[in-house]
């Protein structure tokens, strides 16, 4: 792993930023401050961060209903995100999107998506455009284990394969589609084997190990940029909370939950950083504190921002 200190601490900071953002969003939701559905990324931070650390601003991602982590890892502005969650005019999408459709086209965030599996074909289209325009870039499509059973997964991977497009398909296998355990929704254990069906290399990694994710993504990204086509990476992980806020999780085995909480990617990476002398505990604490401040500032920004005007309902339907 040839990452310098700055990059390593950056990974850490981003993971913490996601975690704190999500915890704050949870608190706001439980406090009745946010409308709609909220799907938290807590526990899965190493994936978004490990993958996006390989991307530049012209590289793109498509995201999911559980998208906050991807957006933060890709460099999204948390003020605008928080404002969007509050439905404010200053939000990323002027309050029209809420949690599930956040995008920032300027930095390659093509959008979260409320339809499971819908991002994959769109990612293929973005990659098609990159090749068409002779851009030296790559698209990452994030999606879940549940989404890997949608027809769009199949069609998108096959299409990317035959057109040999620069796409990295990243499956976040948190072992559940909503309440349905992986063992109930598919017989295979490693979703990466599905690459076989398209002659796409598939790889399974520990999704709670940010460096392992980083490594796997680095290879896939360079493969794509070298014109060698798409890859499939499966990251095994676990969501710490329910599917959405309000989910009582009758389906989760407390033992499993305990086992996975012990593998929380953030303390785990913190330990590594300290052991390998990248940072001291105090330095990591300072990072966390500064992140927390930023999150508080984002909340303040959001809450002091104006609502959209009722007549804004009518704008942005058609381009002139």
């Amino acid at each position, binding site marked *: 792993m040839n990452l310098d200190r700055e990059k390593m601490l950056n990974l850490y900071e981003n993971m913490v930023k996601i975690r704190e953002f999500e915890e704050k969003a949870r608190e706001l939701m439980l406090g009745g401050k946010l409308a*709609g559905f909220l799907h938290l990324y807590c526990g899965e931070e190493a994936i978004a961060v490990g993958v996006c650390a390989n991307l530049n601003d012209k590289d793109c991602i498509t995201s999911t209903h559980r998208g906050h982590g991807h957006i933060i890892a890709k460099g999204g502005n948390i003020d605008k995100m928080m404002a969007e969650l509050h439905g404010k005019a200053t939000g990323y999408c002027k309050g029209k*999107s*809420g949690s599930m459709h956040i995008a920032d086209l300027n930095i390659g965030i093509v959008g979260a998506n409320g339809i499971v599996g819908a991002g994959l074909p769109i990612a293929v289209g973005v990659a098609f455009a990159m090749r068409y325009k002779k851009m030296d870039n790559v698209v990452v499509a994030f999606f879940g284990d549940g989404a890997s059973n949608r027809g769009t997964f199949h069609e998108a991977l096959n299409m990317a394969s035959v057109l040999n497009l620069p796409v990295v398909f990243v499956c976040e296998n948190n072992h559940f589609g909503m309440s349905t355990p992986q063992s*109930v929704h598919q017989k295979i254990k490693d979703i990466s084997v599905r690459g076989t069906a398209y002659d796409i290399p598939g790889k399974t990694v520990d999704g709670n190990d940010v460096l392992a994710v980083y490594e796997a993504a680095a290879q896939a990204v360079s493969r794509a940029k070298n014109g060698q086509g798409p890859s499939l990476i499966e990251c095994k992980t676990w969501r710490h909370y329910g599917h959405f806020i309000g989910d009582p999780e009758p389906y989760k085995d407390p033992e499993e939950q305990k086992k996975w909480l012990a593998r929380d990617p953030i303390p785990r990476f913190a330990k590594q950083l300290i052991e390998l002398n990248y940072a001291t505990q105090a330095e990591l604490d300072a990072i966390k504190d500064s992140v927390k401040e930023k999150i508080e500032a984002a909340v303040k920004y959001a809450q002091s921002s104006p609502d*959209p005007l*009722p007549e804004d309902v*009518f704008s942005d339907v058609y381009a002139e």
Partner: protein
Amino acid sequence: MAKMSYIEAIKETQRAEMQRDPNVFIAGEDVGVMGSAFGQTAGLLKEFGPQRVVDTPISESAIIGLGVGAAAMGLRPILVIDFIDFMAVCMDEVLNQASKLRYMLGGQVKIPLVIRTQIGAGIGAAAQHSQSLEAFFTHMPGMKTVAAATPADIKGLLTAAIRDDNPVMFIEHKTLARLEGDVPEGDYVIPIGKADIKRKGSDVTILSWSAMVHKCLAAAESLAQEGINAEVIDIRSLVPLDKECILNSLGKTGRLVIVHEAVETSGYGAEIAAMVADQGFDLLDAPIKRVAAPFTPVPFSPVLEKEWVVSEEKIIDAVKSLF
């Protein structure tokens, strides 16, 4: 009569029909262990086992396809697609398979399946989880479409839908989940195709379905205080449509306001207005008004969503514009 919530009525009706007929089963995402996101199938897995309450992968085409194949073999599937927005990913199975099979095959099969799904904005679920797309299904010969506004109608219509030998879209509304109401006990079937006059009146006919019926009733109360006595019809069944009930009411009132939550353009209100502008033309004393959503996706922000969803005031204004 038993008092129960809309959700309880959904659950209890499925339970009763599953007890009555061993060929009835439920398949869909999270219908089993979780009992569905809002508890619509809670407890059924325990009672009927995994053979009859099937937790499926996120594969809507395969879910409806499974229903079509099973129905062709004589079973009576209840297929759950949580939000009507998701029907877009399995439209072929509905439009080209379930609805057409009987006709294409010259009457060789019956396809007795029910698709339970929810429409509606109002909870900040934004553009891909808030639509009211019932009109699509009314343009599909072979399909029936019903919508229930009260717990009692849930029981009567869902029972009828499950016992119907044809595919039926059963439209629930997400904001009605906790609505309480009296529900008749025992066997209770509302024939598909019968509208319900939820308020008698003589000055204007307000016609609606699903959650909007309640807004129409509230608007009617306000209007009564201003001396306008509105009749409120809940059509309940979109296809087939109870034309007789509508035209009879119009014979009394001469004025028609159609209210629905979907966007106005090509919403099902258009079909009703068109039918009346032909068959009820001579009964009309005034233009036919539609009160519906603007032609935009559903926005997230509570401020915008409130503006988007049809309000009581808009209904009142439309009615008054006819006098």
